[in-house]
């Protein structure tokens, strides 16, 4: 029996469309729109000005704050503009817009001997490369691997439990070597923590590949996990892989565990071995409305419109374009937002799939949301009190402990927008 967590639910995963497609390079865009802040923490200040020439790999934004991560440009060019642009969340953010040189001189990186580096130097290199959690959370990695407690387990999150997405799956197949090397580095930084690869069983090929590579690697193992949403949520994954329960309102370090997404760990390898900044990632373009679905390697800052233009556009019956996963991602109203460090997917969805609840009903107390909420909350009451504006009661039933996995709104037969109510309560 594969391990798993309590509650949650099986959601059709729609991964067939892209799971067997090797990663392809996306042609280079003519402009990059690079948000100065792509992490959780203090904002960055810009390091370049309009009209300035930038080289590939150059740092363009940084901050002195402890919790922050710099951003870099992946391509050389000229800074055309610095100002507010729409980003994937729909918010305006300060962005550096770069006219990309048609002729690129590839940045050259030299390989260092990792074993000679001190943990201080490793953390410094991770920070300098601007590495943040690439599973969507965006927490600066150098902070995460400098926890206040001793760490027993480093869990590598290869669950990719969001439907449709296959970018981490392809990464585990195609760049397993680098990812494992990155894990080795982080394990060392964390004082020799045991490494667990948590992978859902719908990626058996990845499980096999990594198992084979780990055969002679002490202190590293693959733990196959049941296919269940949200298996990749931090607390749920920790419970499934180690049986430890992170207390409410506490971080994983509390139970001596650190979780890192697999793509982040691969980026750590590049950063430490080559001092290569995080300027590209794999993005899954998929959904019934995508003309050329696939896994594409894109430069951070590439506009969404460029990705779609290079892949034949989208079908005319697409009613929603989502950046991120379908359960937690963001619907786009324009194609202007850039692809960023935390965006693993672009989905072109048709009306038969999308949730919309213009005319939702009252809660009929079917209990489905309660049965499936991975946090053990009462989404029915949170939604009911949230809707009535009685925020204190909504909080008593757990609104603040909700991490917005989306299951409750997904199952609700009354089509209640429960997660929206949660957001209202959190803001109130």
């Amino acid at each position, binding site marked *: 029996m594969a391990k798993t967590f309590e509650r949650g639910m099986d959601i059709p995963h729609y991964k067939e469309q892209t799971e067997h497609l090797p990663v392809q390079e996306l042609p280079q865009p003519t402009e990059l729109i690079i948000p100065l802040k792509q992490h959780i923490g203090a904002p960055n200040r810009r390091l370049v000005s309009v009209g300035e020439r930038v080289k590939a790999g150059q740092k363009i934004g940084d901050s002195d704050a402890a919790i922050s991560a710099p951003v870099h440009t992946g391509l050389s060019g000229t800074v055309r503009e610095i100002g507010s642009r729409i980003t994937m969340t*729909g918010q305006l953010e300060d962005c550096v817009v770069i006219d990309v040189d048609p002729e690129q001189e590839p940045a050259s990186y030299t390989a260092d001997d990792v074993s000679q580096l001190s943990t201080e130097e490793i953390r410094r290199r991770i920070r300098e490369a601007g590495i943040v959690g690439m599973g969507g959370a965006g927490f600066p990695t150098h902070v995460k691997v400098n926890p206040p407690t001793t760490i027993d387990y480093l869990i590598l999150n290869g669950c990719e439990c969001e*439907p449709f997405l296959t970018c981490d799956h392809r990464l585990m197949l195609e760049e397993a070597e680098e990812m494992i090397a990155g894990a080795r580095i982080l394990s060392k930084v964390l004082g020799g923590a045991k490494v667990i690869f948590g992978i859902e069983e719908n990626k058996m090929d990845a499980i096999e590949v990594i198992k084979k590579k780990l055969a002679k690697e002490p202190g590293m193992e693959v733990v196959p996990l049941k296919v269940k949403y949200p298996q990749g949520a931090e*607390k749920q994954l920790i*419970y499934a892989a180690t049986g430890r*329960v*992170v*207390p*409410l309102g506490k971080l994983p370090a509390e139970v001596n565990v650190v979780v890192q997404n697999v793509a982040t760990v691969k980026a750590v390898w590049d950063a430490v071995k080559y001092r290569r900044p995080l300027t590209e990632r794999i993005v899954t373009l998929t959904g019934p409305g995508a003309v050329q679905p696939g896994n594409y390697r894109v430069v951070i800052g590439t506009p969404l419109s460029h990705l*779609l233009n290079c892949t034949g556009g*989208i079908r*005319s019956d*697409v*009613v*929603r*374009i*989502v950046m991120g996963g*379908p*359960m*937690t*991602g*963001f*619907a*786009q109203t324009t*194609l202007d937002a850039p692809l960023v460090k935390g965006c693993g997917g672009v989905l072109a*969805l048709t009306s038969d799939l*999308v*949730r*919309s609840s213009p005319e939702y*009903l*009252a*809660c*009929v*107390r*079917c*209990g*489905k949301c*309660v*049965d499936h909420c*991975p*946090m*053990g*909350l*009462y989404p029915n*009451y949170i939604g009911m009190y949230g*809707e*009535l504006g009685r925020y204190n*009661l909504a909080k*008593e039933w757990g609104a603040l*402990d909700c991490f*917005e996995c*989306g*299951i409750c*709104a*997904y*199952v*609700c*037969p*009354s089509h209640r*927008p429960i*997660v929206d109510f949660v957001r209202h309560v959190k803001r109130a």
Partner: protein
Amino acid sequence: MGTDLNLQAASSPHLHAGDQVSTAMRDVTIALLPVTLVACYFFKFNVPFLIMVCVLTAMFTEVLFRRAMGKKPQLHDGSAILTGVLVALSFSAATPWWLASAATFIAVGFAKEYLGGLGWNRFNPALFGRVSVILFAPWLVYLNNEFFYWRVSFPGIDTVTQATPLTMLQMGLPLPNMGTFFIATQGGGIAESSALALILGGLYLLYKKHITWHIPVSMLATVFIGTALLGQHPVYHLLSGGLLLGAFYMATDWVTSPITKKGQIIFGVCIGIIVVVFRVLLAPTEGVAFAILIMNAFVPLIDRLTRRKKFGEEKAQLIKQTVSTGANVAVKS
């Protein structure tokens, strides 16, 4: 590309499981089809006629009340139709149509719409309507006189005067053969025609995941054990007196049963106990309806007492206030 796009603003999650309230209501109605057919075999056209009267009354009442309360009618959720069917099936086939219609009117108008509409009602509407006409029987005699000339009756009701198995049990009469009894019997309510058909429908609902085993099993097991301990025929008790109808179709009503599985088991056991007390100590019939309604009133309390721990919480906290009643929703929606 780009210009001809019409992209909706929307929030996550972007997928939906596809379930709808109306689908569930429809499936419950379908699950009642087998027993309805058996009843039609016994009571002929009286059955569809009574169902038709109740369904039409239910729909009319819902529209009337919602309009009066300034809300949009919501017939498409299918709950009015289902309530109509359930009320009809809980009567005997010889029941005058105006009585069934009055029960439906109370069920949909008062027990459901007046108390806030689907989702806010605390009592199972069908049972509430059914029980109301029993309690108000003395006043309803008036209706009987008024409507006497409009009575409708079809062939097939000659046998309904036959005593129900429960009363026979009570009076010490010889019981019908268990096998016949299980497959089909005449007597009592329309829905008591066939235990087998009710169980089939119940299994269908379990299969469709609209209900779970917790309420029916805890309720039936309690009645079985309780009556056996008191020296009665547990199987006859299980198969008669609307117990199966109550266990699979009434007590499992989403709106009026506890929200957690643990709460549902407590709920089922309590209903079972009340049924046994009613049947053994008091009147032989209608125990099920009263038991379920009584426990409906305790659902908020059960919910509060069975509040589970959040993931990562030390100990579940008791919440002082829970579900408001329909009174304060009437103003919104």
